[in-house]
């Protein structure tokens, strides 16, 4: 282990700061002094961001390992929970290219969102509570990123889920927000069940291998990533014959762990909670449901990539689910009216992108791994910017519905400029960040032979551009539409809805500006060169440079076509859009209703689980099981009355009972004592 600089050996400081401020703000400052609480929370996260940048800088300057890759360090590791001898959980920090990158992304976006929130939520009564949970979220996200073993990741995973539950449910007097937070927590909890089962399966087999190896695995614990990703362990895992419903054990474990990731990253079957999560305040959506939490699933797959790579079917699942989700979300995205829901579906689609990028990656074609991480890096910035932009628009106009906005170009120049910048980036227009990362993914898909996936990627790129510019044109171009409807995003304090919308205060647009810069700069950060999939033998092949034109041109073209279509329908007179909608008719309504998945889930939980299972069980318990207990009581009482009835009061009946006693005694004695 090369001697580490201060920050590298004390990486645990980065998550410790938000934790400390969480405790400080939560217990002390919240009831006492609201604005101070906000300030302390924001300062803590900014400090963490600074430390992360410093750590990243030091890390990148570390001497490379023999195979030319950046070293994997586990500077601190404290035993926390000892299940069994070889299976104990150490809390610690693991530094490798993707975790450092994630560290930087999370802390930066979180800091900016904190700053933005001080403005956005100014004067709200739940102000202190908001920042407490935001800090808790940041701590648990950092804990997840730095986790050296599966169990610490699972612990922080759950904490992230819980803090997102409280943040979505911030406006807890609004029933829609309450049910959204419940739905989010329960769906992710269901996915975490898969993750837990994955840990159990993997834990058991890894433990048997670890026990078998004895001295060779002295320092490591069974569930550490370092141990799990060792080549010899992986080969033994692959060799496991155990079949469960026809699926190999390793694949089963990988898929189960993937369900956890899919739940958190809202992949296809478990995506229903993300659109409803928009009920939370917009900065929360920006931080959690755009930049950080939702990418945890992608990070999980990336972190345990060697395990996934060991079983081909698992990666296949990842790829298919990713691709389908991106297409599925993109189609729905084109039809939504609520600006935040459109952005939510766009996030879904981009996450699908990252997932299928990992899906196509393998040791032969490692490009997908790097592309996914690169896209994660860039997407965090411009998606956060989009959300903050939407937030400032909502803040000004007090409604989410894009049809009640219009022509905001004139009133909010800064937001408009930055929003346009971000929309261009997400549409993949060079030279912005989106172009580079999307291009990498498409290249990875093409070169690894997955042409179908490449085609889907291209189509989605076009649709992304289409729906992004759709909301851009509707919101910022055209003439002003009055918002006569009831405020959806109700801010009681500045309720002058009819006055002209004004630009957001400085504390809000400054973080957006910073994100704008990052969106521009992110493309040029040499992530592909730093973040590379290290093959099992540790030797890195020489990296390829420059943009692959064969992929770049079709990608950009798709983007431009998308923009043109959006311009055609929505920039000019609105009639064109309405007529198109009429033509599509029924088909359009189905997509708009998100393929009725919400209704299906509601039906399953409400009628099947509650009315058909829980109700009868409660009834069964009261009637049958309790009935049996009461029945025994009743029978004993019956026995009592029977014995009492034998007391007739007739002396001579008693005499005959006595004589019967004698005769019976003789019979029993004779039966039992005969030699």
């Amino acid at each position, binding site marked *: 282990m090369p001697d580490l600089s201060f920050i590298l050996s004390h990486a645990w400081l980065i998550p410790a700061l938000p934790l400390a401020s969480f405790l400080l703000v939560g217990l002390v400052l919240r009831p006492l002094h609201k604005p101070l609480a906000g300030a302390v929370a924001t300062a803590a996260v900014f400090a963490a961001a600074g430390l992360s940048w410093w750590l990243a800088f030091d890390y990148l300057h570390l001497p490379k390992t023999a195979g030319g890759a950046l070293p994997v360090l586990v500077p601190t590791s404290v035993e926390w929970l000892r299940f069994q001898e070889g299976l104990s959980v150490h809390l610690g920090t693991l530094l490798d290219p993707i975790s450092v990158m994630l560290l930087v992304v999370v802390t930066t976006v979180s800091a900016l969102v904190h700053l933005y929130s001080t403005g956005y939520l100014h004067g709200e009564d739940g102000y202190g509570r908001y920042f407490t949970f935001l800090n808790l979220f940041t701590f648990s996200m950092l804990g997840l990123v730095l986790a050296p073993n599966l169990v610490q990741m699972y612990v922080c995973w759950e*904490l992230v889920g819980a803090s997102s539950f409280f943040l979505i449910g911030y406006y807890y007097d609004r029933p829609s927000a309450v049910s959204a937070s419940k739905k989010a927590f329960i769906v992710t909890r269901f996915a975490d069940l898969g993750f837990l089962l994955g840990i159990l399966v993997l834990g058991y087999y890894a433990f*048997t291998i670890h026990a078998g190896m004895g001295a060779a695995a002295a320092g490591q614990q069974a569930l550490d990533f370092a141990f799990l990703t060792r080549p010899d362990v992986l080969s033994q895992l692959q060799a496991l014959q155990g079949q469960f419903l026809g699926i190999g054990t390793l694949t089963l474990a990988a898929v189960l762990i993937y369900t956890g990731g899919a739940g958190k990253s809202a992949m296809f079957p478990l995506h229903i909670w993300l659109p409803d999560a928009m009920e939370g305040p917009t900065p929360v959506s920006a931080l959690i449901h755009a930049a950080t939490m939702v990418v945890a699933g992608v990070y999980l797959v990336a972190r345990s990539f060697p395990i996934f790579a060991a079983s081909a079917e698992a990666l296949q699942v990842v790829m298919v689910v990713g691709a389908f989700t991106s297409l599925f979300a993109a189609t729905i995205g084109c039809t939504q009216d609520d600006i935040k829901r459109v952005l939510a579906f766009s996030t879904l689609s981009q996450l699908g992108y990252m997932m299928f990028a990992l899906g196509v990656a393998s040791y032969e074609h490692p490009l997908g791994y790097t592309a996914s991480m690169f896209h994660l890096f860039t997407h965090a910035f411009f998606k956060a910017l989009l959300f903050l932009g939407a937030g400032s628009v909502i803040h000004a106009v007090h409604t989410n519905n894009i049809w009640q906005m219009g022509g905001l170009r004139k009133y909010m120049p800064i937001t408009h400029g930055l929003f346009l910048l971000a929309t261009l980036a997400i549409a993949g227009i060079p030279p912005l960040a989106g172009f580079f990362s999307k291009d990498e993914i498409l290249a990875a898909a093409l070169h690894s032979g997955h042409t179908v996936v490449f085609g889907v990627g291209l189509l989605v790129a076009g649709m992304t551009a289409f729906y992004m510019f759709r909301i851009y044109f509707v919101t910022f171009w055209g003439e002003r539409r009055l918002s006569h409807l009831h405020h959806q995003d109700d801010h009681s304090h500045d309720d002058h809805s009819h006055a002209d919308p004004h630009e957001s205060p400085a504390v809000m647009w400054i973080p957006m500006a910073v994100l704008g810069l990052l969106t521009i700069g992110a493309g040029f950060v040499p992530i592909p060169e730093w973040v590379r999939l290290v093959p099992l033998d540790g030797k890195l092949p020489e990296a390829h440079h420059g943009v692959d034109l064969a992929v770049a041109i079709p990608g950009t073209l798709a983007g431009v076509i998308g923009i043109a279509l959006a311009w055609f329908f929505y920039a000019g007179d609105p009639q064109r859009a309405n007529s198109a909608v009429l033509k599509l008719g029924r088909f359009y309504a189905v997509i708009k209703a998100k393929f009725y998945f919400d209704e299906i889930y509601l039906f399953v939980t409400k009628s099947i689980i509650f009315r058909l299972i829980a109700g009868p069980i409660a009834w069964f318990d009261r009637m049958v099981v309790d009935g049996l207990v009461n029945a025994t009581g009743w029978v004993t009482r019956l026995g009592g009355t029977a014995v009492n009835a034998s007391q007739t009061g007739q002396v001579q009946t008693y005499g005959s009972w006595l004589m019967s006693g004698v005769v019976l005694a003789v019979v029993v004695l004779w039966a039992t004592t005969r030699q």
Partner: protein
Amino acid sequence: MGLASWLILIPFLTALAVLAVPTRRSDLIRWVALVGTAAHLALTSYTTWAFWQEASPDLVAVRTETVSRVYLVERVPWFESLGIDYLVGVDGVSMSMVILTSIIIFTGVLASWNVVHRTKEFFTLLLVLVTGVFGVFLSFDLFLFFMFYEVAVLPMYLLIGVWGTGRKEYSAMKLTLMLMVGSALILVGFLAMYHANGSTTFDLTKLAQAHFETGLQRWVFPLIFIGFGILGAMYPFHTWSPDGHASAPTAVSMLHAGVLMKLGGYGALRIGVYLLPEGAQYWGLFFMAVTTINIVYGSLGAITQKDLKYFTAYSSVSHCGFVLFGVATLNLMGLKGAVLQMFSHGVMTGLFFALIGMVYGRTHTRIIPEMGGLGKVMPWLAACFYIGGMASLGLPGLAGFIAESHIFLGGFFGNSWTNPILSRTLTVLATLSIVVTAVYVLRGLATVFQGPVRDPHHAELTDATLTERLSTGILVATLVVTGMVPGLLIDLIEGTLFPIVNRLQATGMAIPGHS
């Protein structure tokens, strides 16, 4: 008089002190009770420290022994001719249970600060009940164990009968009778073991060294397990728990769900598995199946409950199912998980019932649909409720997760004499409960604390008073500390469990990976 005897004696002396106070001075009575329980809490912490001084040096040696060591032992011969003696001592598992009970009784006294109806008798009976419980956890002589076990069950009848609500007499009677039937089964088991060992001694450690022949173990183990299972709310015999808790006053249901139901798990582990290893192996899988029903059945049953107390009672049925499931797994992690679950669930349910008592004290209704939006009105209680709820659904960082993760791993690792496929499917079914628990916890809490204030005059209710904040605060603190720093409790418990697992191993079957 050693430390262990003082631990049993203090609650009894407090009870006598309370009796001495004139009846009308009800506030003085409360203070005497509080001082008594506070003194007990102090003594418990000192004893834990003293126990740790004695026990930590031979933590390593214990890994290979087959008889668990007992510390701070006091032995006074009682009925020599029958081999009965007043044998009291402490070991890891019983120490953790004593800590739990001491916390629960202290917070219980705080939570029943506004009992006005016949206060003196209430506190006397409460303290006698807790003396019985301490007696069970600290005694290592089966006769003494059984004696304190029944002392613990009996005041329950009067406590629920006089101070209860709803169908109090019916549920008090049902509760007492079902628990006594349980103790009847246990009595048969104890006597069978006593005589199989040549009717020389009731001392637990000596009985552990004696090897009972397999046939006897096979029919005595189910008796002991079901006998204790009835108190631990095992599936078919759990019906007393919803009624009993629904009609019991706050402190009583806190004590009962929090501590008395743990007697069941404790007894099943300490006497069932420790003394009858072969019996445990023979019946292991069967009871694992029953307790899985217990877990899933309890949590599903809780979803549609309308009354808060029934809601919590069903949830404790499910959580107690975890305890017995952990005991039935018969390997180190499972047993450790069972003891941890006993501790964490004890604190959780104590917190829940205390809070329900406080909410009921204000809104005078326990029906969930009738309440709404109380989060704004009583933020402290709402926050504690949420922390308790999160702990019960096993959020990491709180005590619930530590115990449940142990039990799931234990269940999944199974043991070499049970069919791995079956034990794993049962464990998977059990893990389903973390989702179902999440559903009913969030659903219940959301209806009560979130959303608009449904009942107008709930709006001007007050938040927690000082005593209430103190009691809930202590319970929440315990949950968080155990969740964050489980090392303390795990080391305490592991010392005792190694010998038990070694005994299971000594009966000729290898546990995978156990060194």
